[in-house]
C-alpha cells in the first residue's frame, strides 16, 4: 500500500510544474515509514516563506499555501522531505529515518549510534512521553511494566522509597544488581539510598527522585553485552541510557503541562474491631491461664457512656494528593538551539506525614557555528524536600504501630495523645495477666509517633555537562565531554522525648547527617565513518576518567532545654555527638568500537573496554571487556524476494560479550590501618586485610534472536534467547582461623551462577482505518528468567531464603505445614525425617519435652533444623513476567489499557503471619476462624495467649503464589482539535489515568510486588508489613504554544 502511495506522490510531483500558482488549502497525514504510525509534531514549512504548521496527534496537518509552493516536512531523527504542492489538496507523506533508511537512531555509547536495522544487540527503547505524567516521585518507578526484560519493583507505597530494577534477572549475590544509569552520556552515582540513620533501613530516600522525568526524551536499555561492553566493569546488570530533551531546530515552542493525582493505599489488612479484638484476646488468655483470665476490657475515657474505639488505619492512612506543573521552552535554528524547563512536583503520600516536594530546572544550549564545530552546555538543578515515615521493620513504624494498635482505646484524651511510657496506653487491656508472663508487643502510638517526630531529607542535585565536537574532515568527529554531578542530602531526624526509644532515652534527640556525592567525568573520543563499494565501516576510540568523592558528617544533639526545640541550635541542648565518613573512587578507561556492514545486509560489531578502577586490587587494576555481535538481514537477500509481501523484514542477530560488576567497596582490596586505641594511648591497628587480587565480578552474556516484520509491517516480532554466566562472584570466604585475618573472612572472587531465559516482544497493528482516523495497536512482551547458583565460597548459606548450589538463589527453605488437628486444634508440621505430621500442644500444663507429638500420641522431636524443607526451584522472584498493552486512537481520542503480569514465584506473607501473633495487639479478621471445638476443620489453631509456635512460625503455610495480573495503566486522552490550533496556535492533550486500578492475584497480602527487603538480591519476596502499594487517579493537560 505504501509503495502505491509513494508511486502516486512521484507521479503527482512530475506534473507539478504545470500548475498555476494560487492559494490552496492543503491537508494530509504524515506517517512513519517503518510502522505506519502517525507522526505528531512534524514541522510543515512553506519553503522560502514564513508560513508553517505542525502535525497533530494523528499526524494530520492543514495549511494554506500558494499552489506552486513547496512544503518541507521535517522531524527530528527523520529525513527531511520536500513536496511540491502542485495544486494538490491532499498530500500524505511518509518520513523515513535520517540514516539513509528507516527509523530512529539510538546512541548507545560515546557517539556510537545504531539505527534499528543495524542493531545487532538486544536493546529496548522507549520515548519519554511514556513515563511523563506518571505520578511517581522518580522516573525509575515509572519504568515498571514498559519494556521486555526489565523488571522494576518499588519496595513499598512510601514516596521516594527505593526501586529495584532487574534487567534479565539478578546478577549478583553480594554486590548491587542495579543497572548502570547513564544520563546524557554521564554515568550516575550508583547509590540507591541516601539515608544513613538506622543503617539506611529506617526511612529511605532514593536519589533518583532528584531527576525530573518530564525532561526525559528517550530511554534505551542495553540488555546484552554487545553495546554494553562499552561500559565495561559497570555494565553487568545492564545499562539504562537516558537522553534528556534538547532544543530542535524549527519553530519555537513554549509548553506547559500539569497533572493532579489522588492516591490511596491498596490492600490494607482487614483488622478486628473492638468487640472481636477483645473476644479473641480473652479467649486466648482463658485458654492459657484458665477461665476468668480477662485481659482485654473496654474503656470509656471521656465518660460519654460509649466505650472508646479507634480505627487506626483511618488515622494512619489517607488519600494522597499530587500535583505537577512544568513549563518548558524549546526551539532554535540550525546554528543554535535551546531547551529549558522548570518543574514543580508536590506530593502528599497515602501515609500520614509522608510527602515530597521538588523544584527542578534544566537548561541546555547547542551551538553549531560551522560544519567543523559544535558545542553545547546543559545544566540541571533539583531541590527535593521529603518527609519520610518509619515503616516496616520498626515497632514505631507506621505500619507496625497502626496494625498492632489496640482498637478499644482512644487516640487522644483531652487533646493529648493517649500514651503511657512512650507508647500507646493499654486502656482496659493488660500486656500480662500473671507476673511470670510480662512479655508482649511494644505498641507505639500510631499518630503521635508520626506527628511529634521528623524524618526529613533535603536533597539537592546540581549537574552540568559541556561538550565540544570537532569535525576536521568529513566522517570524523572528535568529542570532548566534561560532566559534573553533585548530590547532597541533609537528613534530619527528630525523636521526641515523649516517644519511647531514642527520644525518651536522650530526652529529645536530633540527628542530622549531611552527605555529599561529588562526581566528575571526562570523556574524549573520536568517531570515524567511511564507506566504499558497499562496505560501511565506522570506528570509535576514546578514553574516560571519572572520580567520585563521598563524605558525610553526622551531628547529634540531645537533652534539649525543652521539647519545643527540635533543631541543633546553639544553647538549646546539652550533649552532642559527631562523626563522619569519607571515601573516593576513580575510573580510568580506554574503549573502542568497530562496526562493519556490507550492503546493510551483513553486520558485524566489535566493542572493547579496558576499565581501570581504584577499588580493584593492585594485581587486577584493569579489567578487559570485549563484546561482539553480528546480524544478518535475510530479507535483503534476493532469494527472499518472493516472500517480501508477507515477510518484509527478517533479521537474525547474535551477540556475546563480557562485562563486569565493579560495585565493590572502594578500599576492599587494600590492607588498611585505622585508629587503634590502647587504653589511654592512641595508635593504629589493622582494620582490614587486603586482597590484592580483588576484582570485578565477571559476567558473560550471550544472546541469539531475531526481529521480524510480518504482514505488511502490521506485525513486528522480536525473540531473544539469552544466557548470563556470572563467575568470580564476590563472597566472604572464611579463612582458616589460625591465619588470624581480621574477621576470619576475606572478600574473594569465588562464586558463580547463571541466568537464562527468553524474551518475546510482539507489536501489532490490529486494525487501522486512515479514513476514519482509527487505529488499534497492541504490544505484548514476555520474559522468562531462570537462575541457578553454581558455586559458593564454602557451605551453602541456609535461611528462609537460602543459597544452595544447584538451586536458584534465595530458594525457599521453610517448615512444611501439616494443618490443624480437627480433634485438638493443635498446629501440625511435617517431621521431615519420618514424613509424618507432628502437632504442637501449646497448653502451658504440658511439659516442654512433651509439646510435640505425632497423631498417634507418641512423642515427636521438637520442630527444628531437621524439619526444614527446601522448596525445590521456588524463590520469591518471578520466573516470568511481562506486559500487554492495547492502544486505540480514534480521531482526537486515545485510549490505553496497560496490563502487567508476573509469576512463577512464592511470596512469604509475613504480614499475615505477624498479624496472628497471639500476644496483645490487634489482629486480622482471619483469626476469627480459629479452632474452637473438636471436629472443626480450620487452618488456624486453638489460640493460647503468648504462644506463637504454630501460629506465626515461618512455614509454607504463609508461602503464597505470587502470580498476578495488574491493570497497571488505563489512560484516556483527548487531543485538542485542529480548530483550536488554527485560532490560537495551541496544540495539546488532556488526559485522565488510573494506575494500578486492580490486581488479579491469589496472593492474600497487599500487593505481590511489595518487598520488605527492598533491593535485596536473594532475600526477595517477603512482605512483612511494608507500606501497601498505591492506586492513583490522575488528570492532566499538556499544552504547546508555538
Amino acid at each position, binding site marked *: 500500500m505504501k509503495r502505491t502511495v509513494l508511486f502516486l506522490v512521484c507521479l503527482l510531483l512530475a506534473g507539478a510544474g504545470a500548475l498555476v500558482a494560487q492559494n490552496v488549502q492543503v491537508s494530509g497525514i504524515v506517517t512513519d515509514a517503518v510502522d505506519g504510525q502517525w507522526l505528531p509534531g512534524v514541522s510543515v514549512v512553506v519553503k522560502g516563506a514564513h508560513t508553517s504548521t505542525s502535525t497533530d496527534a494523528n499526524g494530520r496537518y492543514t495549511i494554506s499555501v500558494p499552489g506552486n509552493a513547496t512544503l518541507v516536512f521535517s522531524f527530528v531523527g527523520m529525513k527531511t522531505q520536500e513536496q511540491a504542492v502542485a495544486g494538490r489538496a491532499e498530500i500524505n507523506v511518509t518520513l523515513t529515518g535520517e540514516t539513509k533508511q528507516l527509523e530512529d537512531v539510538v546512541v548507545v555509547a560515546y557517539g556510537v549510534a545504531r539505527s534499528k536495522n543495524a542493531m545487532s544487540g538486544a536493546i529496548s527503547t522507549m520515548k519519554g512521553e511514556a513515563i511523563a505524567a506518571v505520578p511517581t516521585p522518580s522516573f525509575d518507578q515509572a519504568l515498571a511494566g514498559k519494556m521486555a526484560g526489565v523488571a522494576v519493583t518499588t519496595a513499598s507505597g512510601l514516596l521516594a522509597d527505593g526501586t529495584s530494577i532487574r534487567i534479565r534477572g539478578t546478577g549478583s549475590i553480594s554486590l548491587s544488581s542495579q543497572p548502570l544509569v547513564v544520563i546524557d552520556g554521564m554515568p550516575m552515582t550508583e547509590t540507591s539510598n541516601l539515608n544513613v540513620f538506622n543503617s539506611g533501613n529506617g526511612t529511605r530516600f532514593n536519589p533518583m527522585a532528584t531527576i525530573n522525568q518530564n525532561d526525559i526524551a528517550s530511554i534505551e536499555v542495553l540488555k546484552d553485552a554487545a553495546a554494553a561492553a562499552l561500559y565495561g566493569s559497570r555494565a553487568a546488570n545492564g545499562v539504562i541510557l537516558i537522553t534528556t530533551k534538547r532544543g530542535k531546530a524549527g519553530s519555537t515552542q513554549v509548553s506547559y503541562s500539569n497533572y493532579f493525582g489522588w492516591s490511596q493505599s491498596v490492600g490494607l489488612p482487614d483488622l478486628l474491631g473492638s468487640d472481636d479484638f477483645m473476644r479473641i484476646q480473652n479467649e486466648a488468655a482463658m485458654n492459657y491461664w484458665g477461665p476468668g483470665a480477662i485481659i482485654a476490657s473496654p474503656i470509656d475515657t471521656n465518660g460519654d457512656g460509649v466505650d472508646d474505639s479507634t480505627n487506626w488505619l483511618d488515622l494512619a492512612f489517607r488519600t494522597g494528593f499530587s500535583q505537577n506543573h512544568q513549563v518548558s521552552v524549546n526551539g532554535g535554528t540550525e546554528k543554535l538551539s535551546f531547551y529549558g524547563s522548570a518543574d514543580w512536583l508536590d506530593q502528599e503520600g497515602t501515609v500520614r506525614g509522608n510527602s515530597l516536594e521538588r523544584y527542578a530546572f534544566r537548561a541546555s544550549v547547542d551551538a553549531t557555528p560551522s560544519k567543523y564545530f559544535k558545542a553545547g552546555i546543559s545544566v540541571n538543578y533539583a531541590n527535593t524536600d521529603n518527609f519520610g515515615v518509619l515503616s516496616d521493620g520498626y515497632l514505631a513504624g507506621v505500619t507496625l504501630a497502626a496494625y498492632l494498635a489496640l482498637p478499644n482505646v482512644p487516640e487522644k484524651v483531652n487533646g493529648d495523645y493517649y500514651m503511657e511510657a512512650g507508647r500507646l496506653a493499654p486502656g482496659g487491656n493488660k500486656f500480662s495477666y500473671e507476673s511470670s508472663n510480662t512479655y508482649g508487643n511494644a505498641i507505639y502510638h500510631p499518630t503521635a509517633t508520626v506527628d511529634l517526630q521528623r524524618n526529613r531529607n533535603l536533597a539537592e542535585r546540581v549537574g552540568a555537562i559541556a561538550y565540544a565536537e570537532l569535525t576536521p574532515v568529513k566522517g570524523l568527529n572528535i568529542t570532548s565531554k566534561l560532566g559534573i554531578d553533585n548530590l547532597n542530602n541533609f537528613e534530619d531526624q527528630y525523636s521526641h522525648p515523649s516517644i519511647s526509644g531514642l527520644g525518651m532515652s536522650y530526652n529529645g534527640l536530633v540527628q542530622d547527617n549531611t552527605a555529599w556525592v561529588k562526581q566528575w567525568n571526562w570523556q574524549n573520543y573520536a568517531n570515524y565513518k567511511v564507506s566504499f563499494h558497499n562496505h560501511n565501516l565506522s570506528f570509535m576510540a576514546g578514553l574516560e*576518567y571519572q572520580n567520585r568523592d563521598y563524605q558525610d558528617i553526622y551531628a547529634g544533639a540531645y537533652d534539649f532545654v525543652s521539647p519545643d526545640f527540635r533543631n541543633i541550635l546553639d544553647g538549646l541542648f546539652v550533649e552532642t555527638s559527631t562523626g563522619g565518613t569519607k571515601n573516593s573512587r576513580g575510573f580510568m578507561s580506554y574503549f573502542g568500537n568497530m562496526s562493519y556492514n556490507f550492503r546493510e545486509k551483513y553486520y558485524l560489531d566489535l566493542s572493547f573496554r579496558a576499565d*581501570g578502577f*581504584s577499588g580493584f586490587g593492585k594485581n587486577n587494576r584493569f579489567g578487559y571487556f570485549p563484546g561482539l555481535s553480528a546480524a544478518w538481514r535475510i530479507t535483503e537477500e534476493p532469494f527472499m524476494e518472493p516472500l517480501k509481501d508477507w515477510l518484509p523484514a527478517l533479521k537474525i542477530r547474535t551477540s556475546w560479550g563480557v562485562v563486569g560488576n565493579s560495585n565493590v567497596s572502594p*578500599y576492599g582490596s587494600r590492607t588498611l590501618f585505622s585508629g587503634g586505641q590502647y587504653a589511654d594511648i592512641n595508635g593504629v591497628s589493622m582494620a582490614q586485610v587486603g586482597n590484592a587480587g580483588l576484582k570485578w565480578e565477571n559476567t558473560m552474556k550471550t544472546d541469539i534472536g531475531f526481529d521480524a516484520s510480518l504482514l505488511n509491517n502490521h506485525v513486528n516480532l522480536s525473540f531473544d534467547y539469552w544466557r548470563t554466566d556470572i563467575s568470580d562472584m564476590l563472597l566472604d570466604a572464611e*579463612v582458616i582461623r589460625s591465619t588470624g585475618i581480621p574477621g576470619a573472612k576475606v*572478600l574473594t572472587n569465588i562464586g558463580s551462577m547463571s541466568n537464562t531465559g527468553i524474551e518475546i516482544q510482539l507489536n501489532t497493528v490490529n486494525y487501522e482505518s486512515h479514513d476514519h482516523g482509527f487505529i488499534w495497536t497492541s504490544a505484548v512482551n514476555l520474559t522468562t528468567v531462570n537462575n541457578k547458583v553454581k558455586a559458593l565460597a564454602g557451605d551453602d548459606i541456609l535461611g528462609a531464603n537460602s543459597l544452595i548450589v544447584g538451586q536458584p538463589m534465595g530458594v525457599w527453605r521453610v517448615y512444611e505445614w501439616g494443618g490443624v488437628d480437627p480433634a485438638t486444634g493443635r498446629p501440625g508440621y511435617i517431621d521431615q525425617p519420618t514424613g509424618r505430621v507432628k502437632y504442637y500442644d501449646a497448653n502451658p500444663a504440658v511439659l516442654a519435652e512433651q509439646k510435640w507429638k505425632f497423631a498417634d500420641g507418641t512423642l515427636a522431636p521438637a520442630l527444628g533444623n531437621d524439619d526444614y524443607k527446601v522448596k525445590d526451584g521456588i524463590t520469591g522472584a518471578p520466573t516470568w513476567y511481562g506486559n500487554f498493552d492495547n492502544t486505540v486512537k480514534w480521531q482526537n481520542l486515545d485510549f490505553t489499557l496497560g496490563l502487567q503480569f508476573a509469576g512463577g514465584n512464592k511470596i512469604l506473607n509475613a504480614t499475615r503471619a505477624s498479624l496472628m501473633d497471639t500476644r496483645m495487639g490487634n489482629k486480622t479478621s482471619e483469626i476469627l476462624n480459629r479452632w474452637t471445638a473438636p471436629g472443626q476443620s480450620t487452618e488456624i489453631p486453638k489460640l493460647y495467649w503468648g504462644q506463637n509456635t504454630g501460629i506465626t512460625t515461618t512455614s509454607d503455610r504463609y508461602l503464597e503464589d505470587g502470580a498476578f495480573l495488574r491493570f497497571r495503566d488505563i489512560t484516556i486522552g483527548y487531543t485538542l482539535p485542529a480548530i483550536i490550533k488554527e485560532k490560537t496556535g495551541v496544540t495539546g492533550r488532556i488526559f485522565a489515568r488510573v494506575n494500578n486500578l486492580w490486581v488479579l492475584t491469589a496472593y492474600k497480602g497487599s500487593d505481590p510486588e511489595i518487598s520488605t527487603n527492598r533491593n535485596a538480591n536473594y532475600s526477595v519476596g517477603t512482605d512483612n508489613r511494608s507500606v501497601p502499594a498505591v492506586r492513583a487517579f490522575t488528570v492532566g493537560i499538556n499544552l504547546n504554544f508555538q
Partner: protein
Amino acid sequence: MKNIYIKKLFASLFLAGFLLSCDVLDQPYYMGYDADAIFSDPEKVRSAAIGMYDAFQNADFLGGRAQIYVDIRGMDVNPVSYFGSVSTHDGTLTAANGIVEGAWTGAYRTLFEINLFLENILSHTGVVSAEEEKRFVAEAKFLRAVVYFYLLNLWGQQYAGPSDNLGVPLVLRSFDGGNAFSDEAKIPRATVGEVYDQIIKDLKEAAADLPDKLNNAYENISRANANAVQAFLSRVYLYRRQYAEAVEAADKVTGYSLEDDLAAKVFAYPPPVDNKEIIFFVAMSNTDNPNTNNALGQHYGADYRGDITVSANFLKLFEPNTSDTRFNLLKQKGGSYYCNKYANGSYNWAPVIRYAEVLLNKAEALAQQDAGISTAALGIINEIRDRSKAGKVPAFTEKKDFIDFILAERRRELAFEGHGSFDLFRNEKGIEAGRAAAAAAAIPYPNDLFALPIPEADVTKSGGILIQNGGY
C-alpha cells in the same frame, strides 16, 4: 587556521588526560592509613607499635577472656553457665563450641597483628632509629611469646606429657587475601617443645633489646620492658621445670616490690602509675575496654554481670575468720562469693604478670631444687603472706607438703588472674571435688579434656593437617 588551534587544544586535552590517570586510580584512604604508608613514617611506626597492644587487648583473648578461661577450667570457681561446657570437663564440650572458636580466633588475630608489625618493621629498617627499632621488635616478640604461652597451655597437650606432644600451630608470619587460602596457610600443630622453644627464643631476644624501665610511668606498667620479659621467662621456665633458669630469670627482675594494698594499688582503676608491683597488665580505659560481654570485671563482678562465683575449694584455702586481707578481695552477695579484684566493671586492667608472681615463681623453683625445705623459698612466701597479714608459713618437714603449700599460696595470691587450671595441670594435679553441685565430683589427672578442642572450622578447613585433641 582556527581548526589547527582546536586540534592542538584537543591534543593537549588528551595529554592532560593521561597525566590525570594516576590520580583517579590511586585514591587516598581517609579513615586511616594504607599498610604501606605506615612503615615509611617514624611517627606511624610508633603508632603501629601501640596497635600491637590494641590487638593484644583482644576482647576474646588477653583482654580478659583468656585469663577467665584459665580459671573457670580450674577448681577455684564454680562451673559457669554463661560459658557452658567450657568450664565443666564433663565431655559435653564439642569442637564446634563458639566460645572456644572465639578464643582461638582472638589469639591468632592478636598474633596476626604482631607478625605483620614484625615483618614490616624488619623490611622497613631505618625508618625509626636503630634503638627504637630494636625496642619495637623486642616488644613484638614479647607479646607474641605471651600469646603463645596462653594458647599452648589452653589447647596444647602439654599435660604430663613429653615435649613432642602436640602443641598449637606456630604461625610466625602474616597472611593476606592472596595467600590465606593457599596450602601455606594450613599450618600443622607444632609440638609442645617446639612452641616452648619459640616462646623462650622470643623472650630471650626481647630481653636483650628492651630497657629495664620505660620513662613514661603509664607505659612502664602497660607496655613491655626488660623486667616484664624476665618475669615472664621465670614463669615459662617454672612450667618447663627448668628451675635454675626460673630462679635466674626471677632474679633479673629488679626495681619492683610488693605494694601494701593490693586493692588500692594493684587492682584499682586506674592503677596508680607509680605502681611498684605491676610489671605488665593490659591497660583499659573507660572508652577502650572489652565492655559488658567480655570484661573481667563484668564476668566476675558481683555488681555487674556476676557470671562467675567462687567455689568452696577456694574458700577453704582460708581459715574461718582469717586475718588474710586477700579474703577481702572476695565479695559476698546473695549466698555466693564473687571475686572482687575487678570492682570497676568494664574498666579494670587485665592482669598478665606482677611482682608477687615472680616471687612465687622463684620460691617454687627454689623449693623444687632443694632436697629439703628451702629456707630461701620459705622467706619469700613469708614476705608474700606478711603483706596480706596472713601469718607465717607453718613448719614443714616434707618437701612435697611445702611445695603444696606454695601452690596453695599461689592460688590465694594469684586467684582469678589467669593461673588456676594451668597451675594444676602443670603439676599433674586434677580438679578436686567441691565445685558447685552439677560438677561436684573430682576430675582426676590426666584427662584428655584438660586441653581445649581445636575449633572444628579449622580442622575441617585444614583438610586433615590440624589434628584434633583426644576426647573430642
